């Protein structure tokens, strides 16, 4: 089917599809007129039952913790898939690609900002159940500190700081820790991913029981998965530089 035929067929179908979509959308309740009961109930009992002032964090790691387990394994297997697909290309182990930043100002300021971004990512992950944040956001922010290392210096510095076996271990440990905490909850309380630690006072770090453990497990897993992903893409990118010799 040629391109023109494809586009004509698409425009006919799109008209029908958009008609259906708009008809379905106007059947919903109007914007702002919320009538569900699950959300109202969770808002009412979320803080008093779990002592976590961020109700969204409590939902992600406790009330609907099983969905988060599924999402973590999506992340895990996608990174495995990317590493598998891009693994057949050349590996550059001890090369010197000509990508070192030579400007002193960039290197200094960029290098000084790496610990700041790292601390901010750790803070976002730690206070996930008190204020907006959480394991997922904090994990990506920690991974962006590693990207800053590459941007401010060179590929060799980045590769030295983030060795692949360590990252593999951290990622696997994070995913496994989530399942282990769930199984401990099963053993102690009779339900998978039950909250078994003592709940403290809401609004402080020492609260929300085992949500804190799950929070940190997912932060490590997301951070390690993201850095592994960026490593694969950096290796692809660095091969476009002149002077990169392949490793036979």
């Amino acid at each position: 089917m040629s391109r023109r035929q494809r586009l004509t067929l698409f425009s006919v179908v799109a008209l029908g599809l958009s008609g259906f979509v708009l008809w379905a959308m106007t059947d919903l309740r109007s914007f702002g007129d919320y009538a569900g009961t699950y959300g109202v109930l969770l808002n009412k009992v979320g803080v008093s039952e779990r002592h976590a002032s961020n109700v969204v964090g409590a939902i992600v790691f406790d009330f609907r913790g099983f969905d988060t387990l599924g999402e973590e394994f999506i992340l895990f297997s996608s990174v495995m898939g990317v590493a598998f697909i891009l693994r057949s290309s050349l590996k550059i182990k001890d090369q010197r690609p000509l990508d070192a930043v030579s400007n002193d100002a960039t290197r200094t300021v960029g290098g000084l900002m790496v610990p700041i971004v790292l601390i901010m990512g750790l803070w976002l992950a730690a206070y996930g159940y008190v204020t907006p944040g959480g394991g997922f956001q904090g994990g990506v922010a920690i991974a962006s500190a590693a990207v800053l290392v590459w941007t401010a210096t060179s590929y060799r510095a980045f590769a030295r700081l983030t060795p692949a076996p360590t990252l593999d271990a951290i990622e696997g440990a994070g995913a496994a820790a989530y399942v282990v905490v769930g199984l401990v909850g099963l053993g102690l309380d009779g339900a998978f991913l039950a909250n078994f630690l003592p709940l403290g006072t809401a609004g402080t770090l020492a609260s929300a029981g085992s949500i804190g453990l799950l929070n940190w497990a997912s932060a490590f897993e997301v951070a390690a998965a993201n850095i592994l992903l960026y490593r694969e893409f950096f290796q692809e990118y660095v091969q476009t530089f002149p002077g990169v010799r392949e490793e036979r």
Partner: protein
Amino acid sequence: MILQLISFTAVMVLGVLVVLSFDPLRQVMVNGVFGLSLVVLFVVLQAPDVGLSELVVGTVAFPLVLLATIARTKETQRPK
């Protein structure tokens, strides 16, 4: 109310512009602005967690993987 109207309209216009930019490099830049408008929209809709997620992802991860792929798939298209 006015803020919500402006944010929704900005998201719609920028979304259409993202699809209509055919050069991949230009599309990466427009996608960055689209991500920022999404962050503003999420905060206006009282969802700070989602806004944080979209911010860290759309600023760091998206442009990185896209630019690496563009660099990798462009270099052998030059005539030898």
